């Protein structure tokens, strides 16, 4: 009996071609969109290009040190900047034509910088780097001013020391996982796809209640036990969202080659549980008798979008803000819990955090299922 119900409900779902198409395709298309949008971001930020600079000397002060410094920076070995020595007018033209990032103007051996509008992050990073290089020069000069000109020994020692530009910090890895923060968006996308399983849940309920559909009425009148009917339809309604999420993971990981971090099987397991909670949310909202049928779709769409938004779909930092202001909301928002689970698989070596998240999702599903069952199992209505 159960298999009979499951088989036919699954057939009904698969054959509603356009729905099927969109449920499957929507996350894949959106994932591709993210990939297109973000793919360039990390590579463009990491790429370092030599910064073109114009140097203008306003007076005849001694620039030996400065020129040595600049020579070192623009050498083939370092290639941090490329230099053009010129006059003020031409330098301004080069700046306006965007042929140089900035102008270094030397007055009494002291450099000052001139930039133009920074409408791209790459430019502003270049500007910061230039400023830092000039600050470094000023500071080095200040140190050397403490050295007696005749004390060549110390002079050389300090200059050598400074030019080593030692890095005293050993960065320890906090995690073996993928620390690309763009991953947050992908996690939210996966969470949103799980939440969109709510429509399957809604459609399941509509087919079970006599006051919501003629087919539901027929099922109510049949001699099949109510629980069997509900279970058969429920499991079939969960199958498709689970499948579409697994396909999404495979697509992201193996076709777009995004490093989702963590064990892929556990990621899929997370989406299985996530899909079930999505279906349960739909089941629950659909089963509430006091809500008009027309409003249910609206409520589910709004809830799904809002919960995805609060888990960081559109603005990455929101979840952490909520963690500080109202942490309970993150525990009650299924999308936030799903992203937490995925994040913990990525970042942590232990599974404690992950198991906590999955448990929360499981408990939520059980509660929603139970409440839904209590509302759906009723076969007599006040009015139909």
């Amino acid at each position, binding site marked *: 009996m159960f298999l009979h119900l499951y088989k036919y409900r699954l057939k009904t779902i698969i054959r509603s071609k356009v729905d099927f198409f969109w449920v499957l395709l929507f996350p894949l298309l959106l994932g591709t*969109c993210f990939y297109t949008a973000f793919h360039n971001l990390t590579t463009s930020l990491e790429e370092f290009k030599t910064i073109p600079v114009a140097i203008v000397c306003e007076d005849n002060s001694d620039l030996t040190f400065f020129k040595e410094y600049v020579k070192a920076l623009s050498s083939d070995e370092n290639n941090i900047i490329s230099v053009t020595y010129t006059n003020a007018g031409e330098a301004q033209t080069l700046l306006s034509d965007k042929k140089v990032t900035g102008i270094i103007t030397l007055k009494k051996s002291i450099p000052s910088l001139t*930039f133009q509008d920074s409408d791209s992050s790459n430019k502003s990073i270049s500007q910061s780097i230039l400023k830092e290089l000039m600050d470094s020069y000023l500071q080095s000069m200040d140190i050397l001013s403490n050295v007696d000109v005749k004390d060549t020994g110390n002079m050389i020692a300090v200059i050598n020391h400074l030019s080593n530009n030692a890095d005293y910090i050993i*960065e320890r890895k906090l995690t073996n996982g993928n620390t690309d923060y763009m991953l947050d968006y992908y996690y939210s996308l996966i969470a949103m796809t799980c939440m969109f399983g709510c429509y399957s849940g809604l459609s399941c309920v509509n087919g079970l209640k006599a006051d919501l559909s003629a087919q539901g009425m027929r099922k109510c009148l049949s001699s099949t036990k109510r629980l069997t009917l509900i279970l058969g339809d429920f499991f079939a309604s969960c199958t498709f969202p689970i499948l579409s999420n697994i396909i999404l993971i495979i697509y992201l990981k193996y076709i777009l080659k995004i490093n989702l971090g963590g064990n892929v099987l556990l990621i899929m397991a997370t989406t299985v549980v996530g899909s079930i909670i999505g279906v349960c949310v739909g089941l629950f909202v659909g089963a509430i008798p006091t809500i008009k049928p027309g409003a249910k779709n609206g409520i589910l*769409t709004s809830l799904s979008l809002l919960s995805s938004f609060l888990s960081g779909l559109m603005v990455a930092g929101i979840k952490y803000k909520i963690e500080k202001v109202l942490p309970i909301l993150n525990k009650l928002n299924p999308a936030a819990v799903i992203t937490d689970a995925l994040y913990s698989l990525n970042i942590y070596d232990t599974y404690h955090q992950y198991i906590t998240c999955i448990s929360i999702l499981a408990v939520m599903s059980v509660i929603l299922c139970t409440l839904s069952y209590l509302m759906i199992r009723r076969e007599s209505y006040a009015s139909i």
Partner: protein
Amino acid sequence: MQVFKTYFKVSKKHLGAFFIYTTIFIVLLSVFVAQRKEESDPAAFQSSKIKVSIFDHDQSDLSTSLVSFISENHNIVKIDEDLKSIRDKMYIRDVEYVLIIPEGFEKKLTSTDIDPSYGLEAYKFPGSVSATFIQSQINSFLNIYSSYTILGYDANTANEKTLETLSLETEANVSAALEEKISVPHIYYTIICYILVSVIVMCIAPIIIVFNKEELKNRTNLSCVSQVKRNLSIAAASLIFTLLIFLLFTVISFFMAGNEMKTGIGALRILNTFVNSIVCLSFAFMIATFVTNENQLTFIANFFGLASSFLCGVFVGREFLGKAVVNFSKILPAYWYMDVEIALSKYNNISQFTESTTRTLTYGYVIQILFAIVMFSVGMVISKSRKSA
């Protein structure tokens, strides 16, 4: 007139959904504006103060100086020194940088044999730009300090001199800075692009869909109202709802942005939003002609809303997207909306507009209107072909 009246009768059933969508999206909007405002707060940004934890196992003059230097420039946070605590605290952004000064660090640093492999240990939050910045500050401090030690100064003097040296900064001038200013109206009118398309499509398209289905059922195609007239009646009725939604969100913007909206720039923003509303309406009209149920509509509307918002720089700034993506996104109306909005955000006053600004604005408005016309026409064509099918 009949069609017009029937439209409102049908819409009555959908008022509940209308109300729910609008409320949820207002909540979304408010949270978004608050969050973005905080992220891009100039005061917060300029100081670049981050939350740092330091574990000083050396307790030497050098380490004390270093710790004091860091505390002057950043916020010190106390946490437990085990990997799990560090990870947990970093995960919820309670701390962004952890520095561990090993025992004997001062000795190693001030000896002539400076070997950085005996250096400090640090944990930094992945992808944090400020964390990278603090690292370069620490390295500068240590390099300068060790230089003074090489020159023979004692710890106190070296510390004093290091701080003095570090305070030296190059003067930097930015000429005619025309930057995209992150103000509340800018944040609001950026996200409103996504909000409007979602609310308008999800509220209006279902009414038109029901209308199309009802008609086909009742075969009122045989009536004497021509298809064109009927579509125009539907469009006119939908326009009233669109205007209501537009007015609602404009009023909300006045609440959020207040005085900044009572300017010429504010008026141009309102115009931009009005034009965008019409584009959203046309889009709703177009997809209502071939979508058969609300589930499909949800997916299509959300996909286009989210995709075009991501690709056109609503959620992630345009400067972060690749050139190819930006070029591709020109085929989406949201691109032209954002073009206008970004241009407007650079100025305080209409009198500051240059020729290219006026051109950008004009193109933006006109191309959006063209999109609206095209989508509406496509909708009419599909509707006609469905009737005869």
